[in-house]
């Protein structure tokens, strides 16, 4: 394993010096509160995501603690439900999405040669409303009667007829999260569309930029639908409407249709940027160009379009007409084609490459294998008659944790290790990073793999107790969960260590790295590309 740590070239030093005289950073708390700088805002997003990751993770620990043994030991069922609900909401909206937005903020302007995001003040606003949204959500846990306990999917009538008053807080908190996402997405699209340096053609853009571009469209299309949906939940609960009440002419299944029309593209919102990250890391450490660049772009776009046509595969057991279930089953299986294109392209990129295995590469490799496992269990779930058996079991939990944790979260960790030297100017501690990787890899599989078995055997999700025959597997799962949580402390240790110092990084950082972000010095100056570079 080799880490490129050659001395900076004279050219770099000179360049560095040139950048410095207009590199004034405002200091103190105002720098972060008033900032319009895409790098500052990116850092804010990433730190926020990390904090939320630990808060959401500690809720998962409560869940696993209760499920360590059969029977009721530590928490009340109602509190257990609040934990599953808020864990899901925080991980989706508070950890994974903001982490990707943080990476977009940091990297997209540097990758396309732009001076900043297109709308810098709005960029600040879309970040700073997020902590307030989650403050409201967390405060709702302390309401009389407890917080939201209807699952992150807040199906009606659980969230209408049978919910408590924290629902109002939940609804408005989701509204703010949605506003934040929409503004962030508009900023990404306008930046990519309008701010590319001369010569940065569409088909020269790095795949991370492409995948985020398409993700931003998904966000603009579906976050408003979520806003409409929570509004209907609010009026159903408090203003006597009956959107989801059959007695008034509505239908609870309508809730699920609208929710999953948002929810399924949302799934791709959380994985497409991951594809972009892996497509950046694999070529660097295989020291080969990405295989099939154009097909990667088209595959991403195809996945995005298909994601609007598959939502009801979450609802096979609601009693839809047969032709509808068939349509959604086939459309869902079709997604395996462009996804397969991607996996094959990554593998083909590594074929006969001069590979090294630094921490970002390790996480990216783990991503390819484990995300593909999650993809295969997704195909199993897509088969309607089989889904009748899997529905609402731990098999589903195993599936979406494979794609979200070993998929999205692993890609985010890979991205952080990959670009951390560019952000801080220091190399991270490679040994510590490898420890983090191996501990995470082993514990995450101990955590999520047995869930497939208990799920296939019929253990239902979102229930605080279970039948005796699931006891051994659940004990393993809980231990895996605890170990995975502890492993992330190594990550934090490595991050702090790298931020405080370490071996100086070169501009290129990685031997095989290509792209504009590797041509500016490390750490990247506060303002990059005040005048756009020309790309040949």
């Amino acid at each position, binding site marked *: 394993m080799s880490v490129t740590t050659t001395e900076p070239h004279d050219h770099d030093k000179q360049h560095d010096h040139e950048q410095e005289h207009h590199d004034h950073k405002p200091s103190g708390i105002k720098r972060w509160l008033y900032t319009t700088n895409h790098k500052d805002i990116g850092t804010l997003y990433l730190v926020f995501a990390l904090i939320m990751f630990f808060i959401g993770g500690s809720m998962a620990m409560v869940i696993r603690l209760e499920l360590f043994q059969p029977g009721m030991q530590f928490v009340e069922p109602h509190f257990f439900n609040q934990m599953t609900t808020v864990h899901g909401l925080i991980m989706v909206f508070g950890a994974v999405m903001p982490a990707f937005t943080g990476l977009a903020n940091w990297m997209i302007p540097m990758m396309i040669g732009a001076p900043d995001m297109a709308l810098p003040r*709005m960029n600040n606003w879309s970040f700073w409303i997020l902590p*307030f949204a989650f403050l*409201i959500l967390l*405060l709702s846990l302390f309401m009389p009667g407890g917080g939201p306990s209807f699952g992150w999917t807040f199906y009606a009538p659980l969230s209408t007829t049978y919910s408590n*008053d924290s629902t109002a807080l939940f609804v408005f908190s989701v509204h703010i999260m949605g506003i934040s996402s929409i503004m962030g997405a508009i*900023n990404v699209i306008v930046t990519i569309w309008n701010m590319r340096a001369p010569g940065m053609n569409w088909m020269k853009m790095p795949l991370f930029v492409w995948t985020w571009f398409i993700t931003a469209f998904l966000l603009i299309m579906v976050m408003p639908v979520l806003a409409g949906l929570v509004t209907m939940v609010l009026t159903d609960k408090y*203003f*006597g409407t009956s959107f989801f009440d*059959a007695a008034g002419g509505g239908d609870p299944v309508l809730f699920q249709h*609208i929710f999953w029309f948002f929810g399924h593209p949302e799934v791709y919102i959380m994985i497409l940027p991951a594809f972009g990250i892996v497509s950046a890391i694999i070529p660097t450490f295989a020291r080969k160009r990405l295989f099939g660049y154009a097909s990667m772009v088209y595959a991403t776009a195809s996945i995005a379009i298909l994601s609007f046509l598959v939502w009801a595969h979450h609802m096979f057991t609601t009693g839809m007409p047969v032709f509808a279930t068939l349509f959604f089953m086939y459309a869902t299986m079709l997604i395996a084609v462009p996804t397969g294109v991607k996996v094959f392209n990554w593998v083909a990129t590594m074929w006969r490459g001069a590979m090294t295995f630094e921490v970002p590469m390790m996480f990216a490799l783990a991503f390819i294998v484990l995300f593909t496992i999650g993809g295969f269990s997704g195909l199993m779930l897509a088969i309607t008659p089989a889904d009748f058996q899997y529905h609402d079991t731990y098999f589903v939990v195993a599936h979406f944790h494979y794609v979200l944790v070993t998929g999205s979260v692993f890609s985010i960790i890979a991205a952080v290790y990959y670009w951390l030297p560019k952000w801080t100017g220091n190399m991270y501690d490679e040994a510590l990073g490898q420890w983090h990787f191996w501990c995470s890899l082993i514990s995450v599989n101990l955590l999520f793999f047995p869930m497939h078995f208990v799920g296939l055997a019929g253990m239902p999700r979102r229930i605080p107790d279970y039948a005796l025959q699931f006891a051994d597997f659940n004990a393993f799962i809980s231990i895996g969960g605890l170990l995975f949580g502890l492993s992330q402390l190594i990550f934090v240790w490595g991050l702090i260590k790298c931020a405080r110092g370490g071996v100086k990084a070169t501009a290129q950082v990685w031997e095989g790295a290509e792209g504009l972000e590797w041509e500016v010095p490390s750490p990247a100056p506060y303002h990059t590309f005040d005048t756009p570079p020309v790309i040949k």
Partner: protein
Amino acid sequence: MTTKTYEKYYVPAQSPWPIVGAVALFFIAFGAAHYVIDISKQQSGFGGYLLLLGFAILVFMLVGWFRNVIDESMSGLYSAQMDRSFRQGMSWFIVSEVMFFMAFFGALFYGRIIAMQWLGGSSNNAMTFELLWPNFEPVWPLIKTPGGIETQAMPWTGLPLINTIILVISSVTLHFAHTGLEQQKRGQLKLMLLLTLLLGATFISLQVYEYIHAYRDLGLRLDSGFYGNTFFLLTGFHGLHVTLGAIILLFVFFRVLKGHFTPEKHFAFQAAAWYWHFVDVVWICLFVIVYML
């Protein structure tokens, strides 16, 4: 290589307004949630006050932020590229607004075409109908819900038709205001913009009157079943958007009076106009789908 000189993309240094806006949204959301809880329980609480405080801070933020932006624009800091950013940003914002309305149109479509027919026993739902609501008749408008709430439908003739004509004319007058701006005819610009504002205000007033009529005379209420739900939420959110659009146009009008905007650079006018045309298109969809069909 092009020889075109590069215009610097203006990146504002630091701005206090976004964080002020974030605090405003916090009070609005937290206050609104408690206000909703308070009125549903018919108790008095602090929710309403927090909501008002939030709106006050929001107005303060909007004034400060827009003053900043207008000053920057008038002192020529904005390049053509910057103008494109604004235009694209506004366009995608309108797309997101379209999707917000799509959620409610989608609900209406589903409720009318699918849920209502199933409640009437079609598809594989014969037993739902037989056992739960055997007297239910699946006809649209849904003036009698399965649970037995009765109401009357809002006819499309009369007030809604007049309102449609008013809003369409307002879009036309706004278009003439725009051509006036582009052809340096300031008189036409002012007159047509004023006319648009008056037509917008008339539309809103007539909508208020129609709501009163619906509640008092027709017994059509927000809580009178799926028909009332979709009617009031769709027309209500549309009305909110018209009101917002009219407020934006009002400020554009003030800026026109102060001599702002040139034939080449008038993003604020353009954005307000796009927004107004957008609410007009939404209304036409609404008129056809909610009132006529």
